[in-house]
């Protein structure tokens, strides 16, 4: 394990930011799993897609993973630690590479925790209400693996976005506005374009079959493309830009 990578892992562990993000993730997933799990009418929970929607609430981990990625870069600019960071490692590509790797690892951990939590609560709700679990082993595997892999990619996407925007609040607002507003509008109005968005690619990746959504494999490729493009752009900008 490279020392640069370990330095980035230490940055993640040594503040309370990560704890806050984990708590936020757990709270949101518990809430968004329990509400539909307990309150939806039984006919709304019987199809495969209904159940993917409920048991896949863990994909919200992607949001917190992206936030963690954003923080990993923007808090360095916000608090000025980017200066000592780049003084110690003037090869900025190495710094960004380590941030991408450490962020992705943290993201995968978020994905495992969030995915398991969402799945567990959803499954318990179905079982408790006596609703038959319809997903096959293959479909279940795709749901869980898609959550974990996607969440890892969201962290890389966040690192890239953070390096492009640099301003912490700006990057977070940008992420939320895109994920919750712009992409949904696009998908509703121009589905052929909207389905190429990262959030809808994540939906496709866990096997959701909503109309117009991509299949799982192209969905995975689209999400990889988003993460790669933002990470590359963010790295290029960080390498070229002066640090105040």
């Amino acid at each position, binding site marked *: 394990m490279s020392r640069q990578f370990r330095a980035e892992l230490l*940055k993640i562990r040594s503040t*309370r930011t990560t704890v806050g993000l984990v708590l936020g993730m757990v709270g949101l997933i518990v809430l968004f799993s329990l509400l539909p799990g307990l309150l939806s009418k039984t006919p709304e929970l019987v199809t495969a897609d209904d159940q993917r929607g409920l048991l896949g609430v863990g994909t919200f981990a992607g949001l917190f993973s992206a936030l963690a990625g954003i923080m990993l870069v923007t*808090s360095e600019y916000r*608090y000025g*630690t980017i*200066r000592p*960071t*780049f003084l110690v490692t003037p090869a900025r590509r190495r*710094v960004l590479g380590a941030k991408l790797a450490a962020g992705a690892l943290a993201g995968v951990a978020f994905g495992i925790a969030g995915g398991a939590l969402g799945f567990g609560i959803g499954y318990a709700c179905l079982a408790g209400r006596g609703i038959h679990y319809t997903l096959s082993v293959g479909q279940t595997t795709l749901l869980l693996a898609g959550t974990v892999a996607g969440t890892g990619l969201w962290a890389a996407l966040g690192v890239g976005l953070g390096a492009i925007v640099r301003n912490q609040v700006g990057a977070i607002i940008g992420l939320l506005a895109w994920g919750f507003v712009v992409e949904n509008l696009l998908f509703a109005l121009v589905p052929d374009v909207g389905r190429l968005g990262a959030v809808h690619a994540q939906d496709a990746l866990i096997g959701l079959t909503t109309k117009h959504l991509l299949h799982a494999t192209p969905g995975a490729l689209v999400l990889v493309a988003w993460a790669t493009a933002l990470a590359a752009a963010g790295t290029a900008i960080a390498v070229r830009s002066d640090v105040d």
Partner: protein
Amino acid sequence: MSYQLPVVEAASLTKRFGDVAAVDGLSFALQQGTITGFLGPNGAGKTTTLRMLLGLAEPTSGRAAVFGERYALLQRPSHRVGATLESTDFHPGRSGRDHLRMLALAGEIERSRVEEVLRTVELEGAAGRRVKTYSLGMRQRLGLAAALLGDPELLILDEPANGLDPGGVRWLRDFLRAFAAGRRTVLISSHVLAEVAQTVDQVLIINRGRLVVESSLEDLTGRASASVRVRTPDRYTFADALGRAGIRFSTGGDDTLVAYRTSAEQVGDLAFAARVPIHELGVERSSLEEIFLGLTAEPVA
């Protein structure tokens, strides 16, 4: 180890932000073992120069080098150059020790150095606390600890005395003296000459991005235009002699005259030539701070 090359070198270094030249054709070279004060009023371009020397900002033109190379090309730079640019470059929620540990990891520095530098700056008691609980002086010392982690040969410190109490300033002075005694090199910036006057061997004074003075501290002190106070029973004759020599003066009470921008030698010779008895002669130098302000005064628009 001896370096033929200057340890720090700027050659026609220029940084423009739009139409404004923050640093404008700056050239200087620092030799090993010196302590240099990098002085100028706020906004003179000191920090921008240091950022270029340290590879954080790209020069618009010219060259900035440490140990003969661009900073970015140094191998394991924290083993050669230790630097702090802002006293606030810490995550407030991270402990001082973790801040140093993450830098030690990335800089390929042994973990034991973290505790050593904490002891050096006398922060071992507070190292486990989050930085947000630190005073400004403690943050300055943590920044210095970070700069010292790799046991560097060159220290570049931006306004390190800011926020230090008088005891802290003295501690820093003694520390830097001891550091440079081992043939190591120090560059410290300040906007207050007096703050570094007792620490540095030489000064670079810049104003509006340009070098105004590069000199040893001795020469700078010597360059201070002296006033000479003279007491003579025959001050009218002597005033006449001063006037003919083109020396400005003013008259004081009790047979005294003050001659400006001159030296004791010149005044003594004049008195001898004019056959004026001198009862008292004293040299009054303007303070270093007055020289500094004179050199960096903004032209009146």
